[in-house]
């Protein structure tokens, strides 16, 4: 019923700020040692840079962090040949919402306004096939035999 990451091509998602750092981390499959080390270097540079900025000063413990409002997140899936693609997840109580298609190459996309926090989701292709976002860095076992993509906003 489900597909493995890589069966579909995701163009990109376009969140800002933390989404860029968290979700744009490169995904490597079947990487050799050299590629793994190169990837490690890149990821650590990104992580180190992010922490370098964020470690200016230390907050007293138990201080609440002010959270911003909802964040626009674009999800996209390239599914040539599919008649429809929907997205469902914890943000919409797993009720599939149709994604728009605007081109002949099978690109389906949607922009969601999501509150900050963690969300889990899947794409539903043609109403029958649950598909993991191939670009998702983090996955979570859903208890039902399918991996959910994790989206940290």
């Amino acid at each position, binding site marked *: *019923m489900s597909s493995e990451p890589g069966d579909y091509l995701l163009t990109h998602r376009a969140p800002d700020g*933390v989404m860029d*750092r*968290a979700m744009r*981390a490169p*995904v*490597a*499959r079947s990487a050799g*040692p050299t*590629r*793994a080390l190169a*990837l*490690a270097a890149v*990821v*650590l540079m*990104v*992580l*180190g840079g*992010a*922490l*370098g900025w*964020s*470690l*200016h*000063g*230390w*907050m007293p*413990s*138990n201080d*609440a*962090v*002010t959270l911003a409002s*909802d964040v626009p997140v674009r999800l996209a899936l390239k599914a040539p040949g599919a008649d429809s693609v929907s997205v469902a997840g*914890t*943000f919409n*109580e*797993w*009720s*599939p*919402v149709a994604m*728009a298609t*605007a*081109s002949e190459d099978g*690109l389906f*996309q*949607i*922009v*969601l*306004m*999501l509150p*900050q*926090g*963690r969300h889990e989701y899947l794409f539903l292709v043609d109403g029958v096939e649950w598909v993991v976002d191939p670009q998702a*860095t*983090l996955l*979570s076992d859903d*208890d*039902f035999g*399918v991996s959910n993509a994790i989206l*940290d906003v």
Partner: protein
Amino acid sequence: MKMHLTAAFVILMASSAYGGEPLPAEVASFLDSVSERGVPIDVVELKAREGLAKGVAPQQLRPILERLVEHLEVAQDVHEDADAALLSATASALRSGASASTLRRLGEVQAGARVRATETLGDLVRMNFSERDALRLTLQAAQATDPNAALIGISGAAASLVRSGLPSSTVAKQIDFAMDSAGQMDDDVRAPKGKAYGHDRDGGPADPKGKDK
């Protein structure tokens, strides 16, 4: 083309109004019984709706929901007076293999970052980090000025590195190194070598050589 793409975007407001269809009787009655146990019913209902959306039969949902409720009850013991988000994150981390005693240590994290810290700890344990490494990295990131961003960064970086084939123990060391380097960069910015100015972390004037004493 871009205009067409842009026009095709559907802007949706995140809303709990999605879904909301009546639940099958057996699921509804189970939720009623759960509400008497004091766990957040919304978390259990969301899992039920997920299963139903994925075509799981209502009778097959019960053991999965039961296990979730058990994890939520443990989560209530871990964090007294926790809200639904923290209980849900803690239950998820327990399911990933984190122990209650380790999760209890996250009580020292500032309140606004506790949910994210719990999620990151669960992520790391799920990636086969030792609980000790996972806790150390999580607590360290949680002390950053923007702990939520730092915690997201660690989860994402760890996932990418583990997926590249590196063992989790190696990844833990590399993230340790990155955070130490970042912390050193910060120290250098605030107090360049050869100069003694600014304030130390206790709020007093920086005077490393004690020459003013």
